[in-house]
């Protein structure tokens, strides 16, 4: 396997990895920031969530690009047999789903004051 092929293979998995990773960082990050953001940096959680929503969607986009770039031919739905394209499709869905989860948390950080105990 050449280096370029190896890199291309990794791209199939981008959505599977980036969505949950962004969501995990957002959850932990905003949860930690909530303890401090009343006094200072009130918008920090909002900015973090917005940035990580984009990261999750980026994962979807990379996986979608991998599908479009020619992997589609290797996969027929009923029989299976194209594991990378399959995981790329799962990555597309995963990125969108976790972007939705982060956006939901972003809405929470816009609506709820960090000073409320």
């Amino acid at each position, binding site marked *: 396997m050449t280096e370029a092929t190896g890199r291309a293979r990794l791209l199939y998995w981008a959505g599977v990895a980036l969505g949950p990773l962004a969501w*995990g960082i957002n959850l932990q990050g905003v949860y930690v920031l909530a303890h401090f953001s009343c006094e200072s940096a009130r918008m920090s959680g909002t900015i973090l969530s917005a940035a990580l929503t984009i990261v999750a969607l980026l994962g979807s986009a990379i996986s979608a690009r991998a599908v479009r770039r020619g992997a589609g031919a290797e996969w027929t739905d009923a029989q299976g*047999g194209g*594991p990378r394209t399959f995981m790329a*499709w799962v990555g597309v869905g995963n990125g969108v789903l976790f972007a939705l*989860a982060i956006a*939901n948390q972003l809405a929470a950080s816009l609506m709820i004051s960090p000073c409320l*105990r």
Partner: protein
Amino acid sequence: MSMAAEPNELRDDVLNGLQLSTQLERVWRTPSGLFGALMSVDHKVVGRRYIVTAFAFLLLGGVLAILMRVQLAGPEKTFLSADKYNQIFTMHGSTMMFLFAVPVMEAFAVYLVPLMVGTRNIAFPRLNAFSYWMFLFGGCFLWISFLFNVGPDVGWFAYVPLSNLQFTPTKRADVWAQMITFTEVAALAVSVEIVVTVFKLRAPGMTLDRIPLFVWAMLVTSFLVMFAMPSIMVASTSLILDRLVNTRFYDPSSGGHPLLWQHLFWFFGHPEVYIIFIPGTGMVSAILATFARRPVIGYPVIILSLIATGFLSFGLWVHHMFVTGLPQLGAGLFTASSMLIAVPSGLQIFCWLATLWDGRPVYRTPLLFVIGFIVIFVLGGLSGVMVASVPIDTQVHDTYFVVAHFHYVLIGGAVFPLLGAVYYWLPKITGRMLSERLGRWNFWLAFVGFNIAFFPMHILGLIGMPRRVYTYTAEMDWAHLNLLSSGGALLFALSFALLLVNVIYSLRKGELAGDNPWSASTLEWATTSPPPPQGFDRIPVVKHRDPLWADGESLPVVAGLSVERREVLLTSLAEAEPQIREASPEPSIWPLLTAVATTVFFIGSIFTPWAVLWGTPPMAVTLIGWFWPTGSKEDEE
């Protein structure tokens, strides 16, 4: 490690038919006699033991539930004392969660996953045997303690400071904490085996997108176990340290914090719900495809849902702590995740409904349980979305509403699929069919009994009945609903008695099952019922997601494995291309001896810290024995 090719070694490409079967059976069989049984490393033998033991614990946990319902059937009853009631509800929760729900799902996986992926044994078979013994000893430890009136009485979550030495000076909390360690060691061991089996032992051609959905579900579950359970082991060990050697993990006067316990516990505790539920969804997918007579619609969507549910399950734990005074923004984040997890679960339900809609359903008992699952789980999910909201949760926290919710989710989401799985896979395991007539009675009694038992609890919670009270006064006006609930619980218990009768009857007089009685599509049905020790005479080659429907009678196979020693075929992770042949361990008594030594160490260490000193050498000796080179073929690598 790969085996060096031996030119004179007999391989399965030169034998055929009965000769091949007999030779493989001789190599793979469990030795006879009691000693042989104790040495077994066959995943089918260990899986059967696991299933039977987990159901025995279900029976015990169920008896406790009935005792509680008798006590609560009317106001001011004196059937149980407050102390006994505390022990019983703790034992009920701990038994059901740690000794039944998680182990029984893993038990089915231990039995089925190697067959479903087309290999001859599970990865690390001796670890598998060790895992079973640890589970058995941990369960016995808890129940023997209970019989000696040292049963835990601090709830299945053992919150500090209640479980601190100051408020629980007896050994009851230690028993709970160490039982956790036993069962978690067992669960972690099985998870490692499942992950390696799925990643490396799949039949050639079983690419990632041809793996059966039940196997996918167990793969995701195994990762959940590996990431969630260390948290509870840290918690229970630090609790024992606080109680035994006066550390101060949970003592605020010395810099500790009681909320640390809740965080550690629920970081495990909420994924635990999905550790129980996700295998149930795998069972549902398997049963549904067979009885709808078509592949499950949306295979990639279901995998996406399983993976997403697995990740999201780690971001919900704080919804168990909404009333602990956390920042409202923090609680809001967990409300968001808790509501969002309904999306992947909902996607799966739509896929299953579409499969039923588009298929030609045959309404046999397993499918009835699946339909029961869908109804009950959706109701449990709806009340779950309700308690994910901070204002509602604050109102109903620690009331019977929550008891109703989690029984709908856990029994609906896991026990109904499990009962369906028993009717579906028992013919494979025992070789005999269960009675369809008794099965239908079993289903309707369970469905009606369950709803009568648990639906009134929603109302009881809303009108203010708190959890974990051993009695109530007549003026509270809770008596009628409690009586109704107790009646339903008896009906529900009766349905399990009927299942037991059905299993015993079937073992003696059940109709012979044949290889594939349901005309199912996955590989476990390609071998005999019950399967021979070697699983398959030749390893199948998979060319389709539903191999038995696509290739029918002429399932292609691969040949070349040894028939003189235990050997399995390793394949690549994504494409399942054959890579190397590897030896599979022989039966051994050392896993049992290691489990005995570990048990002595674990139990000793709740009484004295010196157990760490005198408890480890026997463990070291048994482990050395376990791995000692024996000069057998498996060591020549």
